[in-house]
């Protein structure tokens, strides 16, 4: 009877140890899966937000005012807006020619150090053509 109790105790100890070891590995697996899902969600959301911003810029005659209205803040050469876990960054520049101007914008969604999506936008505006 005494031996049987000891065997049961040893078995339980082994079971608990093995369970703890497995839990450690499984927690890592679940953590990684959660991280991946979060990143996927952020990326899907970032694509939609970046598209919205890019389309606004394409249709806008005054990009800087449009960005201000959309909640962007100016930082040196770019415009930024924090959306959830990621950051939307917009850079604007234009190329003028004799016949018109191409207004270029670049909308990037950044999560930490990683760029999730970068959308280039261009809009040609006819000039006087002289």
């Amino acid at each position, binding site marked *: 009877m005494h031996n049987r109790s000891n065997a049961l105790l040893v078995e339980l100890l082994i079971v608990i140890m093995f369970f703890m070891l497995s839990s450690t590995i499984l927690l890592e697996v679940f953590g990684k899966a959660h991280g991946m*899902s979060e*990143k*996927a*969600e952020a*990326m899907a959301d*970032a694509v939609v937000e*970046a598209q919205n911003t890019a389309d606004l810029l394409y249709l806008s005659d005054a990009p800087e005012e449009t960005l201000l209205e959309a909640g962007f803040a100016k930082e040196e050469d770019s415009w930024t807006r924090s959306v959830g876990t990621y950051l939307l960054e917009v850079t604007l520049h234009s190329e003028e020619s004799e*016949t018109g101007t*191409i207004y270029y914008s670049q909308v990037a969604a950044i999560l930490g150090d990683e760029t999730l999506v970068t959308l280039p936008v261009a809009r040609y505006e006819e000039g006087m*053509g002289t």
Partner: protein
Amino acid sequence: MRKKSNISLGPGASSLILIFVVLSLMTLGMLSLMTGKNDLTLSGRSADVVEAVYALNVQAEETRSRIDRVLVESAKDATDQEAYLEAVALGLEDLGEEIYLEDDLVCFTVSDGYREIDCALKVASLGDSRRASWERYNLYAVTEDVWN
């Protein structure tokens, strides 16, 4: 008097429960990992496709600016609409790309090999303040593998 019930755990029972629990958790973990990975791949591909389409839009606008230069040059010496369109057709040939005039439409296609945008710019009448406007702007998938 209530009878005491003795629940005894035989040797090996806890091991069996452990195996069952660990296997179940492992299956759930693998499923979660696979779902997360697939979601991430899908989001990444979706982002790539959107980026590619926007890059094509940029190409189309840049082509439009080159066409507009031709329109300006053609308008300089043209006396009437017919002469203007003739000059435009000649000017477009000089661009050296697959850009052609069809009636009063300047047609061209921008492509990245996987998808293309079929564009047409309507040339305005000579002397109008606006020289051209988009008439057609259609996106097509060139290959069946639209995820590239």
